């Protein structure tokens, strides 16, 4: 790959400091005091359900939206009052926003051609565009128009166009949202490799946790305009900060329980009680499917609704007590079949006290 691109990016890659950013739409707070610190060269994902404020935050970083209070520092520069066109940030839009009347070449060259100071010569621009086309692996599409490209190809053009201005920061808004599953997976791995190689600070917005977990060094989980937790993927999964993060990331069965003396008693005794480390009181229990074991039992209260192979094992969906459960068969025992009655037992759970 390209050595010069690599070094350029490493040199100019910027860290990002966000300080208590607040943004209101009418009376509703889209962002409610968000602070986040991104290191130079880091790949960070903003993950959250729709309406959690992640796109608003990205647009504020890009200078496309304003904040009501707070501050943004990129590199060493305070971004207050700096318009989007002077920020030098690469932005890849959700639907790519390619210029529809320009071919691929002109799209990528745009950022260089509109430069007021130090505009490269057209030979330099052409060389740079070819370099970028090679980087995103679509040199043959130079003369195509956006409506002649597939989703994945448009994505690559959008990325090349954003990189053409040698940004110190790359912002990606749901970049894989409009692609089908296989293309998505390929592209995000490729993007991660490219980012690593170029060393450019990257912030990606997504609602897809697999995507966030797979590509990002650290993930900021957002909820209702706040950062619920910011950490590496394994920390988020193993030590969720609160019930929202625990419920949002990974699959889990969610049950209400009462903790007394280190024993969790489930409401209506749905499941056998379980030893936990948590203070006394009402609590929310999150049980991952692999922690919930199903055994065939004549008098079992749960009926198997679906059985599907999952990797080396088997996953079960059971219903009972007015709820649905994801579970696994007990190790070394008969695998329940659809319609079988089963007993369920939790082998572990994550407990969050319910604050009254």
């Amino acid at each position, binding site marked *: 790959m390209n050595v010069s691109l690599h070094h350029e990016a490493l040199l100019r890659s910027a860290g990002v400091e966000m300080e208590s950013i607040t943004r209101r739409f009418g009376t509703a707070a889209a962002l409610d005091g968000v602070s986040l610190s991104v290191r130079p060269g880091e790949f960070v994902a903003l993950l959250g359900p729709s309406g959690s404020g992640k796109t608003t935050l990205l647009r504020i970083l890009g200078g496309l939206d304003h904040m009501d209070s707070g501050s943004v520092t990129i590199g060493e520069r305070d971004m207050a009052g700096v318009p989007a066109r002077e920020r030098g940030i690469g932005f890849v*839009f959700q639907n790519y926003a*390619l210029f529809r*009347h320009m071919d691929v070449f002109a799209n990528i060259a*745009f*950022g260089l051609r*509109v*430069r007021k100071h130090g505009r490269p010569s057209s030979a330099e621009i052409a060389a740079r565009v070819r370099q970028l086309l090679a980087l995103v692996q679509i040199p043959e599409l130079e003369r195509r128009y956006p409506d002649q490209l597939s989703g994945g190809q448009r994505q690559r053009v959008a990325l090349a166009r954003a990189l*053409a201005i040698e940004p110190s920061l790359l912002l990606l808004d749901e970049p894989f949202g409009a692609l089908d599953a296989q293309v998505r997976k390929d592209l995000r791995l490729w993007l991660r490799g490219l980012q690593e190689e170029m060393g450019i600070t990257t912030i990606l917005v997504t609602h897809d946790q697999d995507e966030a977990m797979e590509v990002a060094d650290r993930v900021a989980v957002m909820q209702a305009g706040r950062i619920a937790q910011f950490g590496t993927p394994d920390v988020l999964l193993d030590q969720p900060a609160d019930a929202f993060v625990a419920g949002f990331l990974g699959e889990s069965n969610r049950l209400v329980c009462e903790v007394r003396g280190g024993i969790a008693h489930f409401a209506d005794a749905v499941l056998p009680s379980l030893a936990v480390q948590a203070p006394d009181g009402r609590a929310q229990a999150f049980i991952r499917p692999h922690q919930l074991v199903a055994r065939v039992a004549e008098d079992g209260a749960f009926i198997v609704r679906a059985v599907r192979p999952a990797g080396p094992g088997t996953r079960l969906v059971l219903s009972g007590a007015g709820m649905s459960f994801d579970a696994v068969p007990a190790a070394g025992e008969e695998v329940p079949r659809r319609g079988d009655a089963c007993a369920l037992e939790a082998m572990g759970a994550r407990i969050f006290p319910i604050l009254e």
Partner: protein
Amino acid sequence: MISSPATRDRPLTRWTAVILAVLLLTVFLALPLAAVFTEALRRGWETALAAYADPDAQSAIMLTLLVAAIAVPVNTLGGIAAAWCVAKYEFPGKRLLVALIELPFSVSPVISGMVFVLVFGAQGWLGPWLQERGVQIIFALPGLVLATVFVTFPFVARTLIPLMQEQGRTEEEAAATLGASGWQSFRLVTLPNVKWALLTGVLLCNARAMGEFGAVSVVSGHIRGETNTMPLYIEILYNEYQFAAAFAVAALLALLALVTLFAKTLLERFSGRRREIA
């Protein structure tokens, strides 16, 4: 074209629709147009050419072209500005602005003309003030231009607004993140994206500017050789039973419209209409 079975109509339905459309087009469009040209040439080329040689006719032709040459650029700029505001920004009073843009279409042109007389005429609100300063608007070129601008304002704005609204703002935002100034973004992104719609709007505006009768009639005063535009001149000739001359000038006016239409079709063909996403 291949029609899918689900939407294929019975032959009877299809042919009835086609015949009806052709019949309507013939009776209401082709026949009158043909009539204009046959009437103009009924007494031969010489009579028609003589009608154009008349100084009053030449003055009317020049005045019509002059009014269009002022009104069309003004409305092109104004229309683009209005469409830009409405399509790309949210602001209080936007609905009102959209309604105002359509006002000239919903008001009878005669009333539009009378409004200008009321405001700028000798007995109007600003009339005496203007008279003292020797500025003549009504019964003069400024009045004709004002009335024409007013009546033809909606054409450009109306053709641009739906397209610009559909295209949204993200391409302009992308241009901004890439370092483009507002003007660069407008010139390189916004304008090329709407150029065909803009051309259509401008041509429609031009056709109406040259053909406008009602509003212009009120503010013109019908001074031969001075404030008569082609449509007004045609009416005068007609009322004076100079049918050959009337139809000769009418044919020229119709021809101007046909030429603009033809030019538009040619332009579209040669610049690859395929790129249009309308």
